């Protein structure tokens, strides 16, 4: 890994890591005096930077890469990113299934604070969204931006800074929840110092992306890049605004948001829904737009639909967040706007899904035979289903039934499992042989098995939650002849029990699929069966080399 860095970059890495180690020491010392849990994070930052420093020193005296490297794409960070993403997938899904069982059997907490539902749940959400999803997005974006620009990344250090720095953020986030460090903002739980760190990492990511695009040897910018860029740019904006907060002390973890009351709720859900839009949709649409046509070896069905879809999705999503706050203290006019824009959002979403499915015209026999392509096809189908459901649930009268029920959980997981995870697995199965220059995955049968486990897990999960959600919603609004509610909350909890067990089983199937995927990827990497240079999947870089920087 280090052998790919120039000597100057190795020195740069050491400087950055030493600085980080110093910051970690200061955090540990300052917070340690008051016994604030931030001191644990100080130690984590210190250990993390020392560990990476050790790796850099280990490879420091390997020969510097020659100019020949500039003739090829730089893929080491993508390789690392894929492996890290799969590790996070297993952690995140394992904790997810754990909290699913916890909901069915609430006593399983060992009487310890860290194992309570409130602390484990964000470990699950952060683990799968930011750990698994985020690393997969970073790894694939590095791969796609170079290929579709026909340009190598401008340097070797900044992609590593982005990947490694991002994972430090994830570790701080997840360990913080277990320690009880949280802003209590859904999907934005990490405290102020972790947030500042993510801003630094993310701006580097944006600059890296723009620099690569600026070096492109293609006249046009491909759709996948529009989506990746929208993802990076808007997530930066969302993250900064929603996390504006004042720390109680620089030597402590606790901070208070700049917003309060209904403005706070609106900011949070403007962030929350656009995280769904730009993290969990735009980024993964970018994957879909590259790996699906590449794997199917078919042209994109319609360039024009790509354009209409992209601008429709990016424009309409921005307005939709208030549909999370129907029938609350939020003024009704904001709710009406959120509802109407959510309804319009359905059309560009379906344009994107249809564009993907129609691209498979002439390749349906491959969908039948190739589980990797089938992952991607099924992802597009779930994307279409979930966006339809989302727009439907945003209609106020529908929302009055669905809100606060498990229906929402079902909806989210139709998107998260059916769309986000399936497109990621499909892309990874396509990408791993390309990156490691293998003829194909170690076992196609295992890819097939993973596909069916993932699909079954998703369906079991989603149907369980649909049932339980609608039952809950109906129980909460059933009146009897005395003019009062017929069921107490506990009654509805008891009615949920079988569905919670079913859901946990669905999650287990999905997790089993991910484990099989890890094994398959591992074996593909371990068993070298390199393909001939001529059979590579990349068009060559242009002969005129970019000057070394």
């Amino acid at each position, binding site marked *: 890994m280090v052998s790919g860095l120039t000597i100057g970059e190795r020195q740069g890495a050491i400087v950055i890591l030493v600085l980080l180690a110093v910051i970690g020491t200061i955090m540990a010392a300052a917070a340690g005096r008051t016994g604030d849990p931030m001191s644990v994070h100080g130690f984590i930052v210190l250990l993390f930077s020392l560990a990476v420093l050790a790796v850099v020193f280990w490879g420091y005296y390997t020969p510097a890469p020659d100019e020949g490297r500039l003739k090829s794409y730089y893929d080491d960070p993508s390789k690392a990113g894929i492996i890290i993403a799969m590790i996070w997938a297993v952690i995140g899904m394992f904790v997810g299934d754990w909290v699913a069982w916890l909901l069915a059997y609430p006593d399983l907490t060992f009487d310890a604070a860290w194992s309570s539902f409130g602390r484990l749940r964000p470990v699950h959400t952060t683990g799968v969204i930011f750990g698994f999803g985020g690393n997969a997005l970073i790894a694939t974006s590095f791969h796609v931006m170079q290929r579709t620009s026909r340009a190598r990344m401008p340097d070797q250090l900044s992609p590593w800074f982005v990947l490694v720095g991002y994972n430090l953020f994830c570790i701080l986030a997840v360990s913080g929840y277990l320690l009880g460090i949280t802003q209590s903002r859904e999907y934005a739980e990490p405290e102020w110092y972790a947030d500042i760190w993510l801003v630094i990492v993310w701006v580097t990511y944006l600059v890296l992306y723009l620099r690569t695009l600026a070096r492109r040897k293609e006249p046009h910018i491909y759709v996948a890049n529009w989506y990746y860029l929208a993802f990076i740019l808007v997530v930066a904006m969302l993250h900064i605004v929603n996390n504006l907060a004042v720390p109680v002390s620089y030597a402590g973890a606790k901070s208070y948001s700049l917003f309060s009351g209904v403005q706070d709720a609106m900011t949070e859900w403007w962030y929350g829904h656009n995280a769904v839009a730009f993290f969990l949709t735009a980024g993964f649409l970018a994957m879909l737009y590259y790996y699906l046509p590449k794997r199917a070896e078919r042209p994109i069905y319609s360039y024009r639909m790509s354009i209409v879809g992209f601008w429709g999705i990016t424009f309409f999503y921005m307005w939709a967040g208030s549909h999370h706050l129907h029938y609350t203290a939020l003024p009704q006019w904001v709710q009406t706007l959120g509802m*109407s824009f959510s309804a319009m959002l359905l059309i560009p979403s379906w344009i994107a899904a249809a564009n993907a499915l129609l691209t498979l015209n002439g390749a349906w026999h491959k969908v039948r035979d190739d589980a990797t392509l089938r992952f991607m096809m099924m992802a597009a189908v779930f994307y279409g289903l979930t966006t339809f459901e989302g727009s439907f649930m945003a209609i106020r009268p529908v929302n009055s039934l669905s809100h606060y029920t498990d229906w929402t959980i079902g909806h989210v997981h139709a998107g998260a499992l059916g769309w986000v995870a399936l497109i990621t697995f499909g892309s990874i199965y396509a990408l791993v042989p390309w990156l490691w220059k293998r003829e194909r995955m170690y076992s196609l049968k295992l890819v097939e098995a993973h596909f069916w486990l993932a699909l079954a897990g998703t369906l079991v999960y989603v149907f369980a939650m649909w049932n339980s959600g609608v039952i809950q919603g109906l129980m909460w609004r059933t009146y009897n002849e005395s003019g009062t509610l017929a*069921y107490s909350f506990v*009654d509805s909890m008891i009615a949920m029990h079988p569905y919670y067990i079913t859901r946990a089983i669905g999650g287990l199937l999905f997790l089993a699929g991910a484990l099989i995927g890890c094994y398959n990827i591992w074996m593909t990497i371990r068993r070298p069966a390199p393909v001939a240079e001529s059979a590579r999947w990349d068009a060559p870089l242009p002969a005129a080399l970019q000057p070394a920087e």
Partner: protein
Amino acid sequence: MSVNERDPHTGHMLTGHEWNGIKELNTPVPKPVWIFLIAAFLFSVACWILLPAWPLGSTYTKGLLGTDQRDVVTEQVHNAAMARSVWTGKIAAMDYAAIRRDQALMTMVRQDGHRLFGDNCAACHGINAMGGKGYPNLIDRDWLWGGDAETVAQTIRAGINSSDENTRVSQMPSFGRDGMLDGKAIFAVSQYVLSLSNPGAVKGTPAETLRTGAKVFADNCAACHGPKGLGDHAMGAPNLTDNIWLYGGDAQTIYTTIYDGRHGEMPAWSPRLSATDIKILTLYVLDRGGPPQ
């Protein structure tokens, strides 16, 4: 590659772009897409015209329907209360005995009480009102504080050892921890207490110990639990002879109760619940215990 290339499979033209082997067709956006987009937009326009929608400085467009979610809720809550008042009015006006004789009214009490109890009381007393360790069974007709309707209502209203100024106050002293009795005396009296409800369990205990226990009881416990251990509603002290246990009737638990003491707490429900709701709950609890005696 020529811009005029045609994809043989779909028959559509290609755009001429290519990225690492990915090409694009120049397929026009299908008509239905535009139709749906316009339909969705018209739906939105209709929403904006009919409902509160767009901000205008410090105010907003009110919408032709003139609805407002606050007014709607206020009205719905008011209407529901009016509809309920047909029978809640009777509950408020009539006395307990009369209500319990009125089967139609009791049907309402059972329906409403089920929900009120489930949402407010079940967390401690259990969904079946049968209690658990430390939380009394409310349907066994064995009362700490007394089972006539007004007494039960007062317990619910003011709570037990609660923060309410009218709270019922009770305390089982910690005889061991506070050094009032030594271990031997506590053992003796715990064996005696056990013998009151379960003579079989103390067969192996020397008669001497039981006699000491009886004496300790008379000196220390009778003031609250009564000379025969039958309990006292005024003190909230349980009957110790009836094999109904709040904390447990095995030798070890009884010993712990006497050694450490007990201090059950129940929150006050007035003013959190309305007077009528408390009356409904009282009726509900009594009704679950069986027909009036």
